[in-house]
């Protein structure tokens, strides 16, 4: 297909956003609703004031219609994120463990459900910015270890991986090609050696 290079090498951030919307999240409905069968997922029976887990995209629609309140996930508050941030600073060779979709979820909740968050949105926003920057710096450092066979960066989220994926893939490919040239010759040498041996024999 005639896709631009960017589409071929990695996901778009918007696509990752879309994937993240499928995560389950707890809501507190304000009205009762019967269950609705949708393609691929079902909206369960909603009873007012009783918590329920539904996919994020449904929760955002209901929230826009003022029909529910979103309960923020346990990791989306200043205390938890600050602890993670301190961890990052403490261990310069490791990434602290954050949920797989932390960037996308936090962004969506901050824009669309900021009144449901436990802490003030601007504080959360600033700590998320800090976290992202620290991890970016660390990943840059980690890429210095790039070799043709193996790279391990634990605890990166999907968005962060996606950002460095095209670059890393290209470099590793090239390194592999270069090293392959040498290896091939080794094997070829071995073949000729065998041949010679055969002849001698």
């Amino acid at each position, binding site marked *: 297909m005639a896709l631009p290079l960017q589409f071929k090498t990695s996901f778009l951030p918007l696509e990752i956003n879309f994937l993240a919307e499928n995560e389950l999240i707890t809501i507190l409905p304000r009205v009762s609703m019967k269950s609705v069968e949708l393609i691929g997922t079902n909206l369960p029976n909603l009873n007012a004031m009783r918590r329920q887990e539904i996919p994020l995209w449904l929760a955002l629609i209901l929230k826009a219609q003022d029909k529910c309140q979103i309960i923020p996930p346990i990791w989306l508050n200043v205390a938890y994120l600050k602890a993670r941030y301190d961890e990052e600073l403490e261990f310069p060779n490791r990434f602290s463990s954050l949920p797989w979709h932390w960037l996308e979820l936090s962004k969506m909740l901050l824009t669309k459900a900021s009144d449901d968050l436990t802490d003030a949105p601007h504080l959360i926003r600033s700590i998320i910015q800090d976290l992202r920057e620290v991890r970016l710096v660390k990943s840059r450092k980690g890429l210095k270890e790039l070799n043709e066979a193996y790279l391990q960066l634990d605890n990166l989220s999907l968005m962060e991986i996606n950002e460095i994926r095209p670059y890393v893939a290209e470099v590793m490919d090239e390194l592999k090609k270069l090293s392959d*040239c040498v290896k091939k010759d080794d094997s070829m040498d071995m073949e000729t050696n065998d041949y010679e041996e055969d002849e001698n024999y």
Partner: protein
Amino acid sequence: MGNYYDLDDIIADNQKLPCKFNVTVPGLGYLEGNIGQPLDANTKLNLPLWLSSVLAICEVSQDSQTTFLDLIHPEFFNNKVINAIRANAVNIDLHSILPNYYKLCEKWCVMFSDVELIEVVSQMLKERSNEINDYGQNPKQISSMAGNKFLYSLDEFEKRLYKISTESHKLSKEWFHNQD
């Protein structure tokens, strides 16, 4: 070798390499400027890689051991360049040495396994690619003096790498700051 349709590969193949003829070939005098004359043995010529690599392997006839020509060690892989790379990989102007350095390196090393060259070049790639990634994350830096110089010194593969890197960082940043 496996990328028959790859444009970069085709362009890289077109790179001329110096070679020495081992036999006299009638009728090829025009390559040297003497039209109608035969091409004598031991003449040095620059021929494109796709031609010279085949002729270097192909024997003249069924029985003989001599090939049509021998490839001479080109200057972009000689010791001077290797030492320069070893000294300062990041600042070396790769584009002016050879626009398709990496590709050609691969092809050369397939024929003549030059382990030392491969090592040096791999190391160079790692260092330069880091630098490229750094510039990719801060696209404004590339317009500074140092950045400009670096940009012009990249060979074709590295340029592609730079483009990929900037694009992906740009998309990420845009999404992150978009307030929709």
